[in-house]
């Protein structure tokens, strides 16, 4: 815990040196809180330390900070009122859903109001014939599928936190899940958004029709990590539930063979509903928990799911099995019934909790790479374990090339937090070198802000800032997250300057 505090203290000054416009005169914090209280219903503004404590972090618990206040509006008019007051006072606003984000997108800061959308939790309407659901941002991801189930429909993106995470947060992060290879990310399953800008304007973005006039702001807003606007309503696309699903469990005696099998499945023209990989340490950790009967001697196992009509699934499962054997699988098991299918998946789902038994702390990374580089990157991670003297287990969305290395550490041991962070950074930079990305589905938030300087050049970062200014001139929405200032990249020593020139050299930057 001491180590955590130190990291937090180190980070705190970084958090507070965001890019908020200092020029505007504002209310003193006490006055703003008072005016929020007068504007919102009783109990909708929290400001006492014990009330603020539950909001000090999201699921990236390494970084903790108390917000100035927490506002809990109950409808769009109240959201507008909060934004209006904050805009007038030039006080930053950080939107928050369920706080399950892993990259610190909802990490508070002491000079900002935390805007919780948790009370906007109504399913406004569900149209089974148009296959759409209109929901408020605080509705849980799984609640949408539950509401759609009686009509044989569901909402496809299923991040692992789907029991708790909200659709508003999914939109902010463009969340993925186990099934996005076949069914897409959040961006592929949205039809429309109502968004309130920091100036209090309501934007109706997208529609229930297949397209809309003008720019594709729906794509731009999805995954914008709360920097461009606050979502007050989401219309999602529902799809028919597949009739059945079966899973192939394939074991491999070498990581390289498992990596090749992943590429071979895709190369054979199969788009599985899910294709996940677990390495040996993960298998060993989860088996005592779930008794799934995983082959403990395997270096890696793949779980490959097929869904659809029964005959179609039968056909695809046979092809998957033959590809797996062709790639050198030492063993292939096909789930015989729904119970067995769930058992095969149980270990994958229990992987993160099981790590808790192996190590007091773990750090979950989220890089993406071209699938064909899987084996090479996993080998490189093994080498890094030696360099940092920390263990790292791998359980991830292999079909998407989306790695989730779990770095195991103990925050009570001096310097393990720092080593875990450095290890994580090196993995992300490796992903960029391999032609991938520093984040496949968790977002940049505060966690990966330095690595943005590795993935993007100064010109692209400047373009992101220009997009930000187009929506939020004074930089009041979630400042300091997702897109680093060029100044920060220079400090981090990773400003990637293309052709030896920084864009607009006349502007003061450093």
């Amino acid at each position, binding site marked *: 815990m001491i180590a955590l505090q130190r990291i937090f203290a180190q980070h705190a000054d970084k958090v507070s040196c965001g890019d908020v416009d200092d020029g505007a005169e504002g209310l003193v914090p006490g006055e703003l809180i008072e005016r929020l209280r007068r504007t919102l219903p009783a109990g909708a503004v929290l400001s006492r330390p014990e009330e603020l404590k539950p909001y000090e972090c999201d699921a990236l618990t390494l970084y903790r900070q108390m917000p100035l206040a927490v506002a809990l509006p109950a409808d769009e008019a109240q959201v507008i009122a909060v934004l209006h007051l904050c805009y007038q006072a030039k006080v930053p606003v950080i939107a928050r859903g369920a706080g399950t984000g892993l990259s610190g997108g909802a990490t508070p800061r002491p000079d900002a109001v935390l805007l919780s959308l948790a009370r906007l939790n109504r399913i406004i309407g569900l149209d089974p014939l148009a296959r759409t659901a209109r929901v408020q941002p605080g509705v849980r991801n799984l609640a949408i599928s539950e509401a759609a189930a009686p009509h044989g429909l569901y909402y496809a993106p299923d991040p692992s936190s789907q029991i708790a995470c909200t659709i508003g947060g999914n939109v902010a992060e463009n969340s993925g899940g186990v099934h996005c*290879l076949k069914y897409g990310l959040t961006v592929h399953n949205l039809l429309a958004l109502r968004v309130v800008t920091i100036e209090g304007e309501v934007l109706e973005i997208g*529609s229930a029709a297949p397209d809309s006039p003008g720019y594709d702001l729906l794509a731009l807003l999805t995954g914008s990590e709360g920097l461009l606007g606050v979502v007050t309503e989401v219309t999602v696309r529902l799809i028919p539930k597949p009739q059945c699903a079966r899973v192939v469990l394939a074991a491999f005696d070498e990581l390289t063979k498992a990596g090749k099998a992943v590429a071979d499945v895709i*190369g054979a023209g199969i788009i599985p509903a899910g294709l996940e990989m677990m390495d040996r340490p993960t298998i060993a950790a989860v088996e005592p928990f779930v008794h799934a009967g995983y082959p403990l001697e395997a270096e890696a196992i793949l779980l490959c799911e097929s869904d659809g*009509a029964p005959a179609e699934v039968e056909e695809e499962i046979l092809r998957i099995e033959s590809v797996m054997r062709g790639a050198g699988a030492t063993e292939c098991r096909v789930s015989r019934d729904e119970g067995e299918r769930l058992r095969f998946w149980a270990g994958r789902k229990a992987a993160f909790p099981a790590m808790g038994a192996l190590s007091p702390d773990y750090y979950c990374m989220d890089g993406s790479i071209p699938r064909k580089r899987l084996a090479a990157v996993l080998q490189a991670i093994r080498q890094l374990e030696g360099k940092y003297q920390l263990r790292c287990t791998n359980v991830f969305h292999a079909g998407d090339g989306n790695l989730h290395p779990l770095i195991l550490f103990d925050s009570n041991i001096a310097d393990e937090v720092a080593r875990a962070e450095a290890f994580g950074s090196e993995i992300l930079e490796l992903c960029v070198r391999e032609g991938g990305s520093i984040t496949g589905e968790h977002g940049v938030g505060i966690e990966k802000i330095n690595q943005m300087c590795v993935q993007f050049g100064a010109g692209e970062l400047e373009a992101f800032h220009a997009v930000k200014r187009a929506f939020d001139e004074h930089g009041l929405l979630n400042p300091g997250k997702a897109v680093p200032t060029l100044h920060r990249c220079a400090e981090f020593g990773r400003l990637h300057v293309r052709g030896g020139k920084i864009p607009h050299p006349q502007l003061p930057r450093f």
Partner: protein
Amino acid sequence: MSDLQSLQERIRAAAAARQPLRIRGGGSKDFYGGRLEGELLEVRALSGITHCEPTELVISARAGTPLAELARELATHQQMLAFEPSHFGGRATLGGTVASGLSGPRRAYCGALRDFVLGVEIIDGRGELLRFGGRVIKNVAGFDVSRLMAGSLGTLGLLTEITLKTVPCPRAQCTLRFEMDQPAALESMTRWATRPLPISATAWHEGMLSVRLSGAESAVRAAHEALGGELVAAADAYWEEVTEQRLEFFAATRELWRVSLPAHSPALPVAGPAFMEWGGSLRWLQGPLDGSALRALAARFGGHATLYRTPVRPPEGTFQSLSAAMLMVHKRLKAAFDPIRILNRGRLHPDL
């Protein structure tokens, strides 16, 4: 000097001289969108596939690459573009296809063009060469500028290279035909869409509904049995005619309206023949029609109407108007990428 550098120089010079530029690939969609303004900036020379990884389901090519070349390359790997774009008589380039954002018959069932854009390289209105997105399926670092480019009609930047996600070709395919009037066709398409059927395209015109099934052999067979209908021979040629708008319906009109509606919208009370696609969400109507009345009608159902093809472009633009708040954001975004407003001025909106 490389092709890219000379394009950058050209844009920088145009920006300095405040000279509008009109970006053109194959010129196959000169008819589409608002006015054509400025000096011609040809991109066709910027051609060629730069990266093709069948096991990654990814292809990258320079913007001037003919769509046909891309399709041929993908076909050798039994892959294709899922959104089934029109080749506009063979002249369409990849850049123009992405800039227009137009998708073909599969769109309603497999996703729109923008869903498959993974990365772009652009030159913005200042002449800066910028790269967004990448070549991996999952990438949420930074704002999604790549998808923003889809359908922006070249008003935010000159596309120079594009990476798209590809999909495997279906193993089996067949097309069924049903005699139905418009309300019955709408009703059937809506009902089928709520079931897990491997439908990949629908088209209705003059009392005939065509439904294409694509997927695993067993799935296609089972769906055929479940739906009934008459099996169509040489159906690929029919769907190509739909995609390329070579059917009599499209040839017979000089003014063509494109109406985009939410699923489960009724038949529109508009006189004259209609052609429906995308499960009824896309309606083509022959003009001339009262544009403002049609737009009000489309808006009432939650959709919008585009004057897709017209002999004379109206000054208010060919697309449905934007709300004041949306127009403000559009103007600011335009200014972020093209502050002097030299790229395809007026093509997407008179004020952009």
